Protein backbone atom coordinates (compact mmCIF):
# COMPACT_ATOMS: atom_id res chain seq x y z
CA UNK A 1 0.00 0.00 0.00
CA UNK A 2 1.65 3.25 -1.10
CA UNK A 3 2.32 5.82 1.61
CA UNK A 4 -0.32 8.06 0.07
CA UNK A 5 -2.96 5.38 0.66
CA UNK A 6 -1.70 4.73 4.18
CA UNK A 7 -2.08 8.38 5.20
CA UNK A 8 -5.40 8.49 3.41
CA UNK A 9 -6.79 5.49 5.25
CA UNK A 10 -5.62 6.71 8.65
CA UNK A 11 -7.12 10.16 8.10
CA UNK A 12 -10.39 8.67 6.86
CA UNK A 13 -10.57 6.44 9.93
CA UNK A 14 -9.96 9.39 12.24
CA UNK A 15 -12.53 11.58 10.50
CA UNK A 16 -15.20 8.88 10.76
CA UNK A 17 -14.64 8.69 14.49
CA UNK A 18 -14.88 12.47 14.84
CA UNK A 19 -18.07 12.51 12.75
CA UNK A 20 -19.63 9.86 15.00
CA UNK A 21 -18.57 11.88 18.04
CA UNK A 22 -20.19 15.05 16.64
CA UNK A 23 -23.50 13.22 16.36
CA UNK A 24 -23.25 11.32 19.65
CA UNK A 25 -22.04 14.01 22.08
CA UNK A 26 -24.86 15.83 23.92
CA UNK A 27 -23.02 19.02 24.86
CA UNK A 28 -23.44 21.26 21.81
CA UNK A 29 -20.31 23.26 22.56
CA UNK A 30 -18.30 20.04 22.39
CA UNK A 31 -20.10 19.21 19.13
CA UNK A 32 -19.08 22.60 17.73
CA UNK A 33 -15.47 21.99 18.68
CA UNK A 34 -15.55 18.49 17.18
CA UNK A 35 -17.00 19.99 14.00
CA UNK A 36 -13.97 22.25 13.82
CA UNK A 37 -11.66 19.23 14.22
CA UNK A 38 -13.71 17.46 11.53
CA UNK A 39 -13.12 20.37 9.13
CA UNK A 40 -9.38 20.41 9.80
CA UNK A 41 -9.14 16.64 9.25
CA UNK A 42 -11.10 17.04 6.01
CA UNK A 43 -8.68 19.76 4.95
CA UNK A 44 -5.81 17.30 5.58
CA UNK A 45 -7.52 14.62 3.50
CA UNK A 46 -8.06 17.03 0.64
CA UNK A 47 -4.43 18.12 0.77
CA UNK A 48 -3.47 14.48 0.59
CA UNK A 49 -5.73 13.98 -2.44
CA UNK A 50 -3.97 16.87 -4.18
CA UNK A 51 -6.80 19.38 -4.21
CA UNK A 52 -5.03 22.19 -2.45
CA UNK A 53 -7.48 25.02 -3.09
CA UNK A 54 -10.35 23.12 -1.52
CA UNK A 55 -8.20 22.18 1.48
CA UNK A 56 -7.31 25.86 1.91
CA UNK A 57 -10.96 26.89 1.69
CA UNK A 58 -12.15 24.13 4.03
CA UNK A 59 -9.57 25.09 6.63
CA UNK A 60 -10.41 28.79 6.39
CA UNK A 61 -14.17 28.68 5.81
CA UNK A 62 -15.19 25.28 7.12
CA UNK A 63 -13.11 25.29 10.28
CA UNK A 64 -12.75 29.03 10.86
CA UNK A 65 -16.04 30.68 10.08
CA UNK A 66 -18.33 27.71 10.77
CA UNK A 67 -16.89 27.41 14.26
CA UNK A 68 -17.37 31.14 14.87
CA UNK A 69 -20.95 30.69 13.65
CA UNK A 70 -21.71 27.69 15.82
CA UNK A 71 -20.13 29.08 18.99
CA UNK A 72 -21.82 32.44 18.39
CA UNK A 73 -25.18 30.73 17.93
CA UNK A 74 -24.62 28.60 21.05
CA UNK A 75 -24.11 31.75 23.11
CA UNK A 76 -27.73 32.59 22.32
CA UNK A 77 -29.15 29.11 22.25
CA UNK A 78 -27.53 27.49 25.24
CA UNK A 79 -25.30 24.45 25.13
CA UNK A 80 -27.42 21.62 26.51
CA UNK A 81 -29.32 19.19 24.29
CA UNK A 82 -32.26 17.45 25.93
CA UNK A 83 -31.59 13.71 26.48
CA UNK A 84 -33.47 11.49 24.08
CA UNK A 85 -34.00 7.78 23.52
CA UNK A 86 -30.85 6.28 21.95
CA UNK A 87 -31.90 5.04 18.47
CA UNK A 88 -34.47 6.71 16.24
CA UNK A 89 -35.44 3.72 14.11
CA UNK A 90 -37.27 5.41 11.21
CA UNK A 91 -34.31 7.75 10.69
CA UNK A 92 -31.93 4.79 10.76
CA UNK A 93 -34.10 3.05 8.17
CA UNK A 94 -34.14 6.05 5.80
CA UNK A 95 -30.39 6.52 6.23
CA UNK A 96 -29.67 2.85 5.60
CA UNK A 97 -31.87 2.88 2.48
CA UNK A 98 -30.06 5.94 1.12
CA UNK A 99 -26.71 4.32 1.90
CA UNK A 100 -27.67 1.12 0.05
CA UNK A 101 -28.83 3.15 -2.96
CA UNK A 102 -25.56 5.10 -3.01
CA UNK A 103 -23.43 1.96 -2.59
CA UNK A 104 -25.39 0.24 -5.38
CA UNK A 105 -24.31 3.16 -7.57
CA UNK A 106 -20.63 2.75 -6.69
CA UNK A 107 -20.46 -0.90 -7.76
CA UNK A 108 -19.76 -0.26 -11.44
CA UNK A 109 -17.86 2.97 -10.83
CA UNK A 110 -14.35 3.68 -12.14
CA UNK A 111 -11.76 2.95 -9.46
CA UNK A 112 -10.52 5.64 -7.11
CA UNK A 113 -7.50 7.43 -8.62
CA UNK A 114 -7.92 5.69 -11.99
CA UNK A 115 -6.37 7.78 -14.77
CA UNK A 116 -8.56 6.25 -17.46
CA UNK A 117 -11.91 7.16 -15.87
CA UNK A 118 -14.22 9.27 -18.05
CA UNK A 119 -13.87 12.23 -15.70
CA UNK A 120 -10.10 12.32 -15.95
CA UNK A 121 -9.78 11.56 -19.64
CA UNK A 122 -12.54 13.89 -20.79
CA UNK A 123 -11.65 16.53 -23.36
CA UNK A 124 -12.94 19.19 -20.97
CA UNK A 125 -10.44 18.34 -18.20
CA UNK A 126 -7.55 18.01 -20.65
CA UNK A 127 -8.21 21.39 -22.25
CA UNK A 128 -8.31 23.07 -18.82
CA UNK A 129 -4.79 21.80 -18.14
CA UNK A 130 -3.41 22.65 -21.56
CA UNK A 131 -5.38 25.92 -21.35
CA UNK A 132 -5.87 26.09 -25.08
CA UNK A 133 -9.63 26.64 -24.85
CA UNK A 134 -10.67 28.76 -27.83
CA UNK A 135 -13.32 31.47 -27.71
CA UNK A 136 -16.38 31.02 -29.90
CA UNK A 137 -17.00 33.90 -32.33
CA UNK A 138 -19.71 36.25 -31.09
CA UNK A 139 -22.23 38.15 -33.21
CA UNK A 140 -20.22 41.36 -32.86
CA UNK A 141 -17.47 39.77 -34.93
CA UNK A 142 -14.86 39.23 -32.22
CA UNK A 143 -12.86 35.99 -31.71
CA UNK A 144 -13.26 34.98 -35.37
CA UNK A 145 -10.47 32.81 -36.83
CA UNK A 146 -8.87 35.88 -38.43
CA UNK A 147 -8.70 37.64 -35.06
CA UNK A 148 -7.07 34.57 -33.49
CA UNK A 149 -4.19 34.55 -36.04
CA UNK A 150 -3.29 38.14 -35.34
CA UNK A 151 -2.45 37.43 -31.66
CA UNK A 152 -1.41 33.83 -32.02
CA UNK A 153 -0.04 32.27 -28.90
CA UNK A 154 -1.60 35.01 -26.82
CA UNK A 155 -4.94 33.32 -26.48
CA UNK A 156 -4.76 32.88 -22.73
CA UNK A 157 -2.14 30.13 -23.11
CA UNK A 158 -0.43 29.26 -19.91
CA UNK A 159 -1.02 32.67 -18.36
CA UNK A 160 -2.41 31.12 -15.22
CA UNK A 161 -0.30 28.50 -13.39
CA UNK A 162 -3.10 27.60 -10.99
CA UNK A 163 -5.54 25.69 -13.26
CA UNK A 164 -8.25 25.58 -10.58
CA UNK A 165 -8.40 29.35 -10.26
CA UNK A 166 -8.48 29.64 -14.06
CA UNK A 167 -11.45 27.24 -14.15
CA UNK A 168 -13.23 28.98 -11.29
CA UNK A 169 -12.79 32.56 -12.36
CA UNK A 170 -12.41 32.49 -16.09
CA UNK A 171 -13.83 29.39 -17.79
CA UNK A 172 -16.68 28.86 -15.29
CA UNK A 173 -16.59 32.40 -13.90
CA UNK A 174 -20.37 32.61 -14.18
CA UNK A 175 -20.76 29.98 -11.43
CA UNK A 176 -18.52 31.98 -9.12
CA UNK A 177 -20.54 35.14 -9.68
CA UNK A 178 -23.63 33.33 -8.42
CA UNK A 179 -21.66 31.80 -5.59
CA UNK A 180 -20.73 35.29 -4.42
CA UNK A 181 -24.42 36.19 -4.65
CA UNK A 182 -25.22 33.17 -2.44
CA UNK A 183 -22.85 34.37 0.26
CA UNK A 184 -24.28 37.90 -0.17
CA UNK A 185 -27.78 36.52 0.60
CA UNK A 186 -26.36 34.73 3.65
CA UNK A 187 -24.93 38.05 4.83
CA UNK A 188 -28.30 39.76 4.26
CA UNK A 189 -30.16 37.09 6.18
CA UNK A 190 -27.82 37.52 9.15
CA UNK A 191 -28.54 41.26 9.05
CA UNK A 192 -32.30 40.72 8.67
CA UNK A 193 -32.78 38.17 11.45
CA UNK A 194 -30.24 39.13 14.04
CA UNK A 195 -29.38 42.79 13.79
CA UNK A 196 -32.76 44.25 13.14
CA UNK A 197 -34.07 42.54 16.28
CA UNK A 198 -33.04 45.48 18.46
CA UNK A 199 -34.72 48.28 16.49
CA UNK A 200 -37.42 45.83 15.49
CA UNK A 201 -38.36 45.54 19.22
Amino acid at each position, binding site marked *: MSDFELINVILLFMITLVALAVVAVR*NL*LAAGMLMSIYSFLMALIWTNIDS*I*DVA*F*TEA*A*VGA*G*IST*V*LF*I*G*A*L*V*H*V*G*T*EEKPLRPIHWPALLVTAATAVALLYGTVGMPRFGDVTSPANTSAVAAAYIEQNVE*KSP*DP*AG*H*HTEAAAES*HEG*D*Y*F*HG*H*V*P*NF*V*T*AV*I*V*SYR*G*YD*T*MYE*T*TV*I*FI*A*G*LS*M*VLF*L*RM*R*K*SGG
Partner: protein
Amino acid sequence: MREQSILRVAAKMMTPFILVFGLYVVFHGDISPGGGFQGGVIIASGFILYGLVYGGADMRRVIPRWLSDALLALGVLLYAGTGTFCLLAGYRFLDYTALRPSSPGTGEVIGMTLVEYGVGFTVAMVMVTIYNEISEGTVPEDGGDGSATAEAPSSGAAAGRDAIRPGTAAPPSAA
Protein backbone atom coordinates in the same frame (compact mmCIF):
# COMPACT_ATOMS: atom_id res chain seq x y z
CA MET B 1 -8.45 44.46 32.85
CA ARG B 2 -4.86 43.35 33.49
CA GLU B 3 -5.43 39.78 32.29
CA GLN B 4 -6.64 41.21 28.97
CA SER B 5 -3.41 43.06 28.24
CA ILE B 6 -1.50 39.99 27.01
CA LEU B 7 -4.29 39.20 24.59
CA ARG B 8 -4.46 42.78 23.47
CA VAL B 9 -0.76 43.15 22.80
CA ALA B 10 -0.66 39.85 20.94
CA ALA B 11 -3.70 40.78 18.86
CA LYS B 12 -2.32 44.20 18.12
CA MET B 13 0.89 42.62 16.83
CA MET B 14 -0.73 39.84 14.80
CA THR B 15 -3.63 41.63 13.13
CA PRO B 16 -1.56 43.56 10.53
CA PHE B 17 0.25 40.39 9.44
CA ILE B 18 -3.02 38.49 9.11
CA LEU B 19 -4.46 41.24 6.92
CA VAL B 20 -1.34 41.39 4.74
CA PHE B 21 -1.34 37.62 4.34
CA GLY B 22 -5.05 37.74 3.43
CA LEU B 23 -4.38 40.39 0.79
CA TYR B 24 -1.46 38.31 -0.51
CA VAL B 25 -3.74 35.29 -0.92
CA VAL B 26 -6.31 37.38 -2.80
CA PHE B 27 -3.71 38.95 -5.12
CA HIS B 28 -1.88 35.69 -5.87
CA GLY B 29 -5.05 33.75 -6.57
CA ASP B 30 -3.95 32.67 -10.02
CA ILE B 31 -0.33 31.82 -9.19
CA SER B 32 -0.38 29.99 -5.90
CA PRO B 33 -3.26 28.12 -4.25
CA GLY B 34 -5.86 30.50 -2.85
CA GLY B 35 -8.00 33.19 -4.34
CA GLY B 36 -10.86 35.50 -3.54
CA PHE B 37 -12.63 33.24 -1.05
CA GLN B 38 -9.71 32.08 1.02
CA GLY B 39 -8.14 35.56 1.06
CA GLY B 40 -11.44 37.18 2.02
CA VAL B 41 -11.88 34.80 4.92
CA ILE B 42 -8.35 35.41 6.18
CA ILE B 43 -8.90 39.19 6.07
CA ALA B 44 -12.16 38.68 7.95
CA SER B 45 -10.41 36.52 10.56
CA GLY B 46 -8.03 39.41 11.16
CA PHE B 47 -10.98 41.69 11.93
CA ILE B 48 -12.69 39.00 14.01
CA LEU B 49 -9.55 38.53 16.13
CA TYR B 50 -9.59 42.29 16.75
CA GLY B 51 -13.31 42.14 17.56
CA LEU B 52 -12.87 39.21 19.98
CA VAL B 53 -10.13 40.90 21.93
CA TYR B 54 -11.34 44.51 21.86
CA GLY B 55 -15.07 43.82 22.07
CA GLY B 56 -17.88 44.54 19.62
CA ALA B 57 -18.08 48.31 20.21
CA ASP B 58 -14.47 48.92 19.16
CA MET B 59 -14.93 46.70 16.17
CA ARG B 60 -17.95 48.73 15.10
CA ARG B 61 -15.81 51.83 15.39
CA VAL B 62 -13.24 50.21 13.06
CA ILE B 63 -15.86 48.91 10.64
CA PRO B 64 -19.15 50.80 11.06
CA ARG B 65 -22.27 48.94 10.04
CA TRP B 66 -22.99 51.11 7.03
CA LEU B 67 -19.49 50.45 5.66
CA SER B 68 -19.73 46.68 6.02
CA ASP B 69 -23.20 46.64 4.45
CA ALA B 70 -21.99 48.79 1.55
CA LEU B 71 -18.91 46.65 0.88
CA LEU B 72 -21.13 43.58 1.12
CA ALA B 73 -22.96 44.58 -2.06
CA LEU B 74 -20.02 46.37 -3.69
CA GLY B 75 -18.02 43.16 -4.04
CA VAL B 76 -20.70 41.39 -6.05
CA LEU B 77 -21.40 44.60 -7.97
CA LEU B 78 -17.69 44.75 -8.90
CA TYR B 79 -17.92 41.17 -10.17
CA ALA B 80 -21.16 41.63 -12.11
CA GLY B 81 -20.04 45.12 -13.16
CA THR B 82 -16.90 43.78 -14.82
CA GLY B 83 -19.07 41.31 -16.71
CA THR B 84 -21.52 44.03 -17.71
CA PHE B 85 -18.67 46.28 -18.84
CA CYS B 86 -17.61 43.56 -21.24
CA LEU B 87 -21.23 43.37 -22.39
CA LEU B 88 -21.41 47.12 -23.01
CA ALA B 89 -18.08 47.01 -24.84
CA GLY B 90 -19.72 44.81 -27.47
CA TYR B 91 -18.34 41.47 -26.30
CA ARG B 92 -20.33 38.76 -24.56
CA PHE B 93 -21.03 38.85 -20.83
CA LEU B 94 -17.91 38.09 -18.71
CA ASP B 95 -15.73 38.00 -21.85
CA TYR B 96 -12.61 39.64 -20.36
CA THR B 97 -11.01 40.21 -23.76
CA ALA B 98 -13.01 43.46 -23.77
CA LEU B 99 -10.69 44.81 -21.03
CA ARG B 100 -7.65 44.64 -23.28
CA PRO B 101 -8.82 43.90 -26.87
CA SER B 102 -5.24 44.13 -28.21
CA SER B 103 -4.00 41.09 -26.33
CA PRO B 104 -6.77 38.73 -25.12
CA GLY B 105 -4.45 36.88 -22.71
CA THR B 106 -3.68 40.01 -20.71
CA GLY B 107 -7.32 41.05 -20.81
CA GLU B 108 -8.18 37.69 -19.30
CA VAL B 109 -5.71 38.09 -16.43
CA ILE B 110 -6.90 41.65 -15.74
CA GLY B 111 -10.48 40.42 -15.65
CA MET B 112 -9.58 37.59 -13.32
CA THR B 113 -7.79 39.88 -10.88
CA LEU B 114 -10.66 42.40 -10.81
CA VAL B 115 -13.13 39.63 -10.17
CA GLU B 116 -10.99 38.15 -7.39
CA TYR B 117 -11.02 41.53 -5.60
CA GLY B 118 -14.82 41.60 -5.84
CA VAL B 119 -15.08 38.12 -4.36
CA GLY B 120 -12.52 38.98 -1.67
CA PHE B 121 -14.43 42.11 -0.62
CA THR B 122 -17.78 40.40 -0.39
CA VAL B 123 -16.55 37.30 1.44
CA ALA B 124 -14.53 39.37 3.94
CA MET B 125 -17.44 41.68 4.68
CA VAL B 126 -19.96 38.83 4.95
CA MET B 127 -17.78 37.05 7.50
CA VAL B 128 -17.35 40.29 9.46
CA THR B 129 -21.12 40.90 9.34
CA ILE B 130 -21.74 37.33 10.49
CA TYR B 131 -19.45 37.83 13.46
CA ASN B 132 -20.93 41.23 14.28
CA GLU B 133 -24.51 40.00 14.20
CA ILE B 134 -23.90 36.70 15.98
CA SER B 135 -22.06 38.40 18.83
CA GLU B 136 -24.75 41.09 18.91
CA GLY B 137 -26.87 39.47 21.57
CA THR B 138 -24.05 38.97 24.06
CA VAL B 139 -23.65 42.69 24.81
CA PRO B 140 -26.43 43.60 27.31
CA GLU B 141 -28.23 46.31 25.36
CA ASP B 142 -30.01 49.18 26.94
CA GLY B 143 -31.15 50.94 23.79
CA GLY B 144 -28.73 53.10 21.79
CA ASP B 145 -27.98 51.87 18.34
CA GLY B 146 -24.72 49.95 18.40
CA SER B 147 -22.94 51.81 21.16
CA ALA B 148 -22.77 49.17 23.84
CA THR B 149 -23.09 51.54 26.80
CA ALA B 150 -20.13 52.98 28.63
CA GLU B 151 -18.87 49.89 30.39
CA ALA B 152 -15.47 48.46 29.53
CA PRO B 153 -15.38 47.47 25.87
CA SER B 154 -14.33 43.95 26.77
CA SER B 155 -17.64 43.23 28.46
CA GLY B 156 -18.78 41.77 25.15
CA ALA B 157 -16.06 39.14 25.30
CA ALA B 158 -16.52 38.69 29.07
CA ALA B 159 -20.28 38.26 28.86
CA GLY B 160 -19.77 35.91 25.97
CA ARG B 161 -17.27 33.86 27.93
CA ASP B 162 -19.46 33.51 31.02
CA ALA B 163 -22.36 32.35 28.91
CA ILE B 164 -20.35 29.63 27.21
CA ARG B 165 -19.11 28.03 30.42
CA PRO B 166 -21.13 24.78 30.41
CA GLY B 167 -24.02 24.59 32.80
CA THR B 168 -24.68 28.33 33.10
CA ALA B 169 -28.06 29.42 31.83
CA ALA B 170 -28.20 31.26 28.53
CA PRO B 171 -27.71 35.03 28.86
CA PRO B 172 -30.93 37.01 29.48
CA SER B 173 -31.82 37.44 25.81
CA ALA B 174 -34.10 40.44 25.43
CA ALA B 175 -37.39 39.22 23.91
